[in-house]
């Protein structure tokens, strides 16, 4: 029964990735350290005033770790990217340039323990549709220790 469930999950994975054979996952390293660093600087000036210097959020504003990333996960990364581009920052929605947006997404991935890689995250919705956002689970983080 368990094996059967896993088999179904494997079959379903390409569907989640937009049926693209070249789809990948955020766990594979889809951004660069430089990009995330640039994203951190943008975050400090465009996002931190609401979401907190340490991404901790408040009672009313979402923190950007753990629960937040879970809520956006198991879906193409393009959904988060498009949302940020469309609706954030709340006081000036739509003001992030595509490359700024990608840098901020890279920073959020880094802040959520996602590994960096060799290639920068593309500032392109179509390309991001092929990247599945998978959170680093507390379980996996413990195994990695």
């Amino acid at each position, binding site marked *: 029964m368990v094996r059967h469930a896993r088999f179904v999950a494997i079959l379903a994975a390409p569907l989640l990735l937009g049926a693209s054979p070249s789809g990948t996952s955020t766990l594979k390293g889809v951004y660069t350290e430089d990009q995330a660093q640039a994203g951190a600087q943008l975050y400090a000036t465009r996002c931190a005033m609401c979401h*907190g*210097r*340490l991404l*901790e959020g*408040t*009672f*009313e504003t979402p*923190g950007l*770790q*753990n*629960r937040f*990333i*879970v809520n956006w996960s*198991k879906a193409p990364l393009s959904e988060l990217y498009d949302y940020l581009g469309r609706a954030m920052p709340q006081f000036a929605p739509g003001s992030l340039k595509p490359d700024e947006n990608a840098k901020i997404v890279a920073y959020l991935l880094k802040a959520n323990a996602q590994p960096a890689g060799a290639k920068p995250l593309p500032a392109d919705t179509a390309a991001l549709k092929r990247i599945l956002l998978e*959170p*680093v*689970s*507390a*379980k996996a*983080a*413990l*195994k990695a220790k």
Partner: protein
Amino acid sequence: MLRGSLGAAALVGLQACASATKLAQTSAAPPPPLPGKSISLVPLRVSLDQLIDLKCCLRPLRAAGPNLGTEMVRDTLVVHNYGHGGSGWSLSWGSADVALGKALTVFPKEIAVIGCGIIGLTTAVLAQQYGLKVTIYSRDPIQRSRSFRASGSFTPSSRIALAEPAGPAFGDLWEQMARFSWKAFRTCLGLPGKPVEFTESYGLSDTPPQRRVWTPDPAITDSYATKGTPLQHTEFAHLDERIRDIVPQSVALAPEEIPFNVPYATRTSQMHFNFSSYAHMLQSEFFGRGGQYVMRDFATPAQFADLKEKVVIHCTGYAARDLINDQTVIPVRGQTGWLVPQPEANYGVRYKNVSVLSKADGVVVQNNSSTPELGDMLGVGNSMELVNRADTEAALKIIAPVFAPAARQA
């Protein structure tokens, strides 16, 4: 002045004015009170005949601050949420949010919460609000937990950590939890039964009030680092300054305003929790959302993995010292005496390190007096959980004079 004054607030106010006028003659140029600003209070009855309960508990001081770490017990993810010192009530919502954030990364549909003190029950309810099915496993309901033997004031940095073992980053986490909790408590204000309430609290003294500044005692060369237990007040983390923008601060009263038998007083607005209605509120939400409660105990943490839920939030407070063998949990004994509720006298006073606070669930009396003054060291390392009636009797004797009628009639 107290004679016949119950229920006669106007008379109390007039007599307080008369008394204060005499005091003003010996004080240096106080600002004139605004018309009608004199404070009228019904005096608290702080006599032994009102004593109906004594409670004692052990605050779980953890040197590095609360344990919010994770570990695997066989196939089960355990997220810890214990070790909040004297700040469990005050940080309960924020700490639950941090712990649940970690639990949610494995996409659980259902979780187990171990322990049903204020941390466990709050964590369970917040988990339900986040859409999870929750079962609490606990040997006792909250009414019989150590949490119910606290005093019930908002004190978010009371014995929450030691500064050095907790490290500089702890302040940020603490502030996050404190601010989150404060907002959560705000949503409880005004509810039936007043689970959360603000009252006026008066700091009284015979001498001009001065903020106590603690400096390390040079004669004490050891510390937690060398002895495994703190040895002086200055080793503790004191973080309240970080949230002073939202928490009411004390203001000095002019002599004309002081309705007590002392020359000096400050006033602050203090948030507190009424245990009975607060527990009822949480339990109603928990069971209303379909929560399950299983009465059981655990002998070892290995038994966590025997539960059907594969994500467990561990919230056993002081019991974690034995259950998971966390010897960094240090007992800090605290005792409260409880007088018959006096809703007509809805305020608190502090005098000579004795505090009395009138709440819906009783008038809570705490004796923090000692010679020399110990500050946060009071009760550290003392795991005697039996009550000491003499301690509360002494507290009542210390504080009784501030309500004495003779001087107030003068």
